[in-house]
């Protein structure tokens, strides 16, 4: 198990957003997380990635207890996330956003003065990798535009590109293809499928059909709890799931 989440509790004032959620994710799988609006999916991702501190429960990543770690520490371990509402660096170019996501570049202050040649060399290699990813996502021609000038869908793609760029061990994707045209959305999931060899994915997605095609396993959330789980086939026939999510 690459990720083990046990009994997570989180409330906002009186509102209980997570009420003992637990799930497990196996290495090199694509796992779907579905549930109605407000069921706590994003909150769960926020807790896993360290942006929210849970009131109870534990999170283990690769066997290590990371409960209470800070976001940057968790990301450094190779557990990365994207945001439901796209967040990128508007006054940086698309290419710079990608370069920023690279986890192998030396971004220390000292390197600025000491090893500029090495930085430039590494940067060239990164830029090449970035260009390939951007081309795949069909935004290769926008490399030198400000990220803030991209359309909503393109920004979503850039976020995905940054995720691929950082080559994490595990990725949490919060509605990665919302607002992306269906054929490209399919291509993206095919890419994710290919990446499965190297990484593990936990994907929040409302488009159940897409998940059914690509996921190995699906968890269903409702009111801060995992109410069902299983393979796509099992989920499709599950009574509770049909009740809470598929609209019965």
């Amino acid at each position: 198990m690459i990720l083990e989440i046990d009994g997570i509790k989180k409330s906002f004032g009186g509102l209980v957003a997570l009420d003992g959620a637990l799930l497990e994710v196996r290495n090199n799988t694509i796992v779907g997380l579905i549930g109605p609006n407000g069921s706590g999916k994003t909150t769960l991702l926020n807790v896993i990635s360290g942006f929210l501190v849970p009131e109870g429960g534990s999170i283990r990543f690769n066997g290590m207890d990371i409960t209470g770690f800070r976001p940057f520490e968790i990301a450094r371990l190779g557990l990365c996330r994207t945001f439901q509402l796209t967040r990128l660096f508007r006054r940086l170019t698309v290419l710079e956003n990608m370069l920023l996501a690279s986890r192998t570049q030396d971004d220390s202050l000292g390197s600025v003065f000491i090893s500029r040649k090495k930085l430039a060399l590494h940067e060239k290699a990164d830029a090449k990798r970035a260009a390939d990813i951007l081309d795949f996502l069909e935004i290769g021609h926008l490399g030198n535009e400000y990220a803030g000038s991209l359309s909503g869908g393109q920004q979503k793609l850039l976020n995905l590109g940054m995720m691929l760029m950082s080559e994490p061990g595990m990725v949490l994707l919060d509605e990665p293809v919302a607002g992306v045209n269906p054929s490209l959305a399919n291509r993206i999931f095919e890419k994710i499928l290919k990446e499965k060899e190297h990484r593990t994915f936990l994907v929040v997605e409302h488009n159940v059909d897409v998940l059914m095609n690509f996921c190995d396993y699906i968890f269903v959330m409702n009111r801060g709890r995992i109410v069902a789980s299983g393979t796509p086939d099992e989920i499709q026939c599950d009574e509770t799931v049909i009740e809470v999510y598929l609209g019965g």
Partner: protein
Amino acid sequence: MLLDYALDALIYTGIYAILTISLNLEAGCTGLMNFGKVAFFATGAYTTALLTTSGVPVIFSAIAGVLLSAVFGLLVALPTLRLRADYLAIVTIAFGEILRMFLHNEDWLTGGPIGIRGIPQPLYQYFDGSYLLFYLFIVFITLVACYFIAELVINSPFGRVLRAIRDDEDAVAALGKNTFLFKTQAFVIGACIASIAGTLFAHYLSFISPDMFLPTLTFSIWTIMVIGGRGNNLGVITGSVLITVFERGSRFIKDYIEMPFGLEPYNVRIIVIGLLLILFIIYRPDGMLRERKSRSPL
């Protein structure tokens, strides 16, 4: 006489430009609201004044000023940079005022309200008669050095993280970067550069007193940055030229022209700069020179 006025204006321009480059690194590029810039300027000025009047060579006193500024920068940064942006603004204003009060009240060390006189002018004996020109040269060299260092920092992977923090700090953390560390380093570099400007200032005037380090100086530097173009070092240098030449020029010109309605020229100057600032914020918020798109890869 006229030449002296011009040289004086240019020396001030250079010193303000160095200060603004340091503010630009913190506020323009990283988004750190430092409203206490004057404190680090004063640290450089007082450190060199105290040390050189007791016989320490300028080069060492300048370094001592930079180190002390770095320590002050750390002291301000460590407790506040973990908090939301607005706390930094409050703490830096407070720090500037506390330091000024200290300089004002601790006579035994700082000479109190009278300040420190007789700060040596380095190499004066060799440039008797053309000292202003020589000093302008020193200021210019320092400015060029600060400019290149700042550019080097901003246009590096390190600087890219700073510019990303300005846009969305949490998203930078999500990429595995310790944003607190980056902000602290930016703040400390800013403090060090400001201290160098203070050193130049003290030796130029050869006397300093606490009332030269009022919060209004910080706001002048902010004005220069906003008008010049935040994020653009050439822009903030241009801004320094514009504002300082206007500021100094109006000082000079007031002896020759009659103000209508008996207006006090000093007040008119502040009103004009204020109006200019407002017009820029409304009609050209990027300033005279827009931040350039960074060429990447390096």
